[in-house]
């Protein structure tokens, strides 16, 4: 009887800790996407990065501890046309030989109310690091956590598209970066 009580107490403690403090850690690479949108001669274009890695830990109850680090393999870009794919890894654009990755490292996450949050952090592209903030929504679906966000960068801030390409009337300066991350929850150890 005593041991049964202990089991019940222990398991209820486990369950409650699981319910109140779930940390979303394991990024599901095959379900997550990083895409981007831009305008070219007024024409909306969409592209994506096929390869990226993400290390994150997110517990809505402990935002102060939330962390995210995303590294994007720039050579895995798909701009929507082969001609452009060859072009954008070159020196005037990403110079992917010298700077193969773009990286985001979070510095903080704050709640915006409801399921909305905002991550701030450092975005490094082509050797240049700038502060960015990205609003996102978070939805927990059982043990699956869905993060969806979009933020805009100006490509010229990172010298993406130099020389003749610096003309923003052809390829717009604003690039919308969209991320959709699927994370699996792991119970908090502490």
């Amino acid at each position, binding site marked *: 009887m005593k041991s049964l009580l202990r089991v019940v107490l222990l398991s209820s403690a486990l369950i409650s800790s699981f319910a109140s403090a779930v940390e979303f850690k394991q990024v599901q690479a095959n379900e997550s996407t990083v895409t981007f949108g831009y305008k070219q*001669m007024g024409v909306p274009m969409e592209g994506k990065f096929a390869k990226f890695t993400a290390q994150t830990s997110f517990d809505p109850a402990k935002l102060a501890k939330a962390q995210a680090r995303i590294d994007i393999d720039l050579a895995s870009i798909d701009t929507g046309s082969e001609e452009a794919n060859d072009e954008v890894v070159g020196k005037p654009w990403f110079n992917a030989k010298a700077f193969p990755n773009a990286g985001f490292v979070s510095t903080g996450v704050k709640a915006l109310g409801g399921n909305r949050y905002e991550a701030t952090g450092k975005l490094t592209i082509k050797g240049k690091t700038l502060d960015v903030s990205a609003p996102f929504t978070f939805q927990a679906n059982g043990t699956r956590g869905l993060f969806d966000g979009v933020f805009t960068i100006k490509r010229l801030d990172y010298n993406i598209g130099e020389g003749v390409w610096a003309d923003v009337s052809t390829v717009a300066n604003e690039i919308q970066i969209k991320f959709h991350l699927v994370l699996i929850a792991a119970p908090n150890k502490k």
Partner: protein
Amino acid sequence: MNSSILRYNNTAMALHWLVALLIFAAFPLGVYMHDLPLSPTKLQYYSYHKWIGITILLLVITRVVWRFTHTPPPLPASTPRWEVVVSHITHLALYGLLLAIPLSGWLMSSAKGFQTVWFGVLPLPDLVEKNKELGQLLATVHQGLNVFLFLLVGMHIAAVIKHKFIDHDQILERMLPKGMSK
């Protein structure tokens, strides 16, 4: 004598010469831009080409409507039967090509994943989805139709020269404003 020439009306003349001018811009631009290395200039030329093409499509639709609602001035009574037949076929084919060529370009652009945005302002719907094979097929169709257009415009101009300098009739004057012909 001059006043007796039955001319196309101003609307028909304006449409004819405007479309002619635009073809003489879009056609060489299309040939030239195709082999350019990727650059902002190339992207601009492609956009200009598409904008002109869609403009031609709209003007030619207007021309077809005009043609259905008006009777063109008659050919000289002396025109041989074979010339009447050939000229009807040529004009019919020209109208068809001037509708089919911009349309195939619009579809090709969609299939290749580039929406057409007229003058960078008015987005046209993508009537087909992005599809590499379809894009290549439509590129071939677009080029092939343009070869026909080149030949037919050549015939059209050759016929004008023949009528003007060999037959000495007033076929050309039907499409020229009053002040311009002697």
